[in-house]
Every structure is written in C-alpha cells, then in structure tokens.
C-alpha cells in the first residue's frame, strides 16, 4: 500500500464546510480547534476557488523535524501522528507547518496553550485502538475500522478525496480527462446537456 494522502479538487469544492463539520462531529473536537478548514481565494469575485485544508501528512514533515521532544511518528501508511503525553505545547510545529495544521486549545484559564491537536487522518494515536483514552486524546480511529477519514467520505461533491495516494491520483486524473476544461467543467453544457446528446430543438408555431 502506498501512502495515505488527501487531495482537494478546487474545481469541485463549493465551500459547504461539510468536511469541517464532519471532522468536528466525528472527533468531538473542542471549540477553537479546527483540524480542517475551508480556505477561499478571491471570495465573492467571479472565479473564486475554495480548497479544504488540514494536515497533509507530509512525506518529509517539517513538524517532525522541529519538535524538540520528538513526539511525532509516522505510521507504515504514511500518516503523521503524535503522542500527546509527550507534547509540551511549545508551538514549534505550528511555526514550521506550511498549512497551519497544528492547533492549540485556547479554552483554558488565561488562554493557555495546551497540547497540540491536529488531523490524524482518522487514525487515532498511540493508545489502544478505539479505546476511550484514544478517543479522548485523538478522536475516533476510523482507519482501524477499515474506513477512510470522515471528511473525505462526507464530501458531497467528492472534491475532497482521501486514501491510498496512487488510487486518489488515478481518480483525479480520470476526472480531469473526462470533464475537460472551461465551460465544459461548469456551465450551460454541463447543466443542460450538449445539443448532440439527445437535445431536440423546439418545434411548433410561434405564438
């Protein structure tokens, strides 16, 4: 098996925030912590693009490189996880991450910075699979149930794909080749069908 990866198709993302909600609900993520979020470029302007962003589970993860207590590890499926018992909440990983994936709970007294929390690719952490301790610290372990991350599986337009990197790349490649470009992607032809595909010109007398 190749590495687990996320891929977000900006042509398909409609900024519904379904992925964000799915993640929040699945792992009971506390207020102020967003493991996943939707970023929109040129918001409100014609041609705006949205993309769903979370931990990208980098092959050469900068968070792992800068962690002073070495609390990060990578699973055999390429998922970057960390041990919260070891994390000291220094925030180095947040500065190093180009995606802003590491999150810190701000709900304590005086807005103290707690242990880092981030997307786990729904793979839990270093606790017994699907135990209460694992859920409390890292959220649900869907991968151990043979399921993919909730965000990708919940995506209504299938803009967000998750899973084996090779398979995800194949799906995306096939999609791009079929849908073409320009108005073929999102326009009159897509919505109402092309004239050569069964559309008959209106007949009858003009009123």
């Amino acid at each position, binding site marked *: 098996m190749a590495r687990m990866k996320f891929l977000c198709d900006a042509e398909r993302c409609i900024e519904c925030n379904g992925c964000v909600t799915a993640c929040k609900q699945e792992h009971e993520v506390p207020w102020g912590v967003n493991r996943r979020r939707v970023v929109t470029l040129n918001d409100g302007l014609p041609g705006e693009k949205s993309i769903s962003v979370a931990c990208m589970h980098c092959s050469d993860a900068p968070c792992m490189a800068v962690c002073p207590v*070495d609390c990060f*590890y990578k699973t055999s499926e390429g998922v970057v996880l960390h041990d919260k018992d*070891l994390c000291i909440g220094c925030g180095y990983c947040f500065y190093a991450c180009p995606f802003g994936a590491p999150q810190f709970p701000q709900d304590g007294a005086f807005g103290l910075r707690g242990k880092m929390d981030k997307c786990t690719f729904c793979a839990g952490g270093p606790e017994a*699979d699907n135990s209460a301790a694992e859920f409390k610290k890292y959220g649900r372990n869907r991968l*151990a149930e*043979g399921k*993919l991350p909730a965000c*990708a599986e919940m995506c209504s337009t299938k803009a967000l794909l*998750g*899973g084996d990197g090779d398979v995800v790349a194949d799906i995306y490649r096939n999609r791009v080749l079929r849908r073409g470009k320009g108005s073929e992607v999102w326009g009159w032809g897509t919505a109402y069908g092309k004239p050569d595909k069964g559309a008959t010109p209106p007949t009858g007398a003009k009123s």
Partner: protein
Amino acid sequence: MKRILIAGLAGSLVLLAGCGEKQQVIVYKQGQYQGKPDKQPWDNAQFKNDKVAWEKAIKARTDGQNEYTRTTN
C-alpha cells in the same frame, strides 16, 4: 542474639534499597520518536491482524470515491 543481628542487618539492607538512585529524566535520542508505540490498524479484533483484508477494505472505500465507476458499473 545472632538471629536478632541477622534480622537487623536484613532489615537495614531493605531500608537502604529504597535509597537507590533511579533515573527520573527521559533520555532523549536525537531524531527518534520518544513516545508510546502504536499498533497497526489491522491489528485489532475486527481484522484479526489480517493486513490483506484491511487493505481490501480500504481499497474498496477509496475506489468508492470515484463516481465515474460508480455510475457506469
């Protein structure tokens, strides 16, 4: 008398054992994961350590994201 002496010596040895120096600081190994070990996702009651079955389940889910094959097959 001898017994009391032996018992006293044994007792003092037990008491002294509590004074042993124990490492209380984590010895960090640079660049290596220091936390608890994690199990593989197929090492559980559901998949019974069957990696192939787990990969099959994940592949089915991943392929299910391709609506082109879902609608044509």
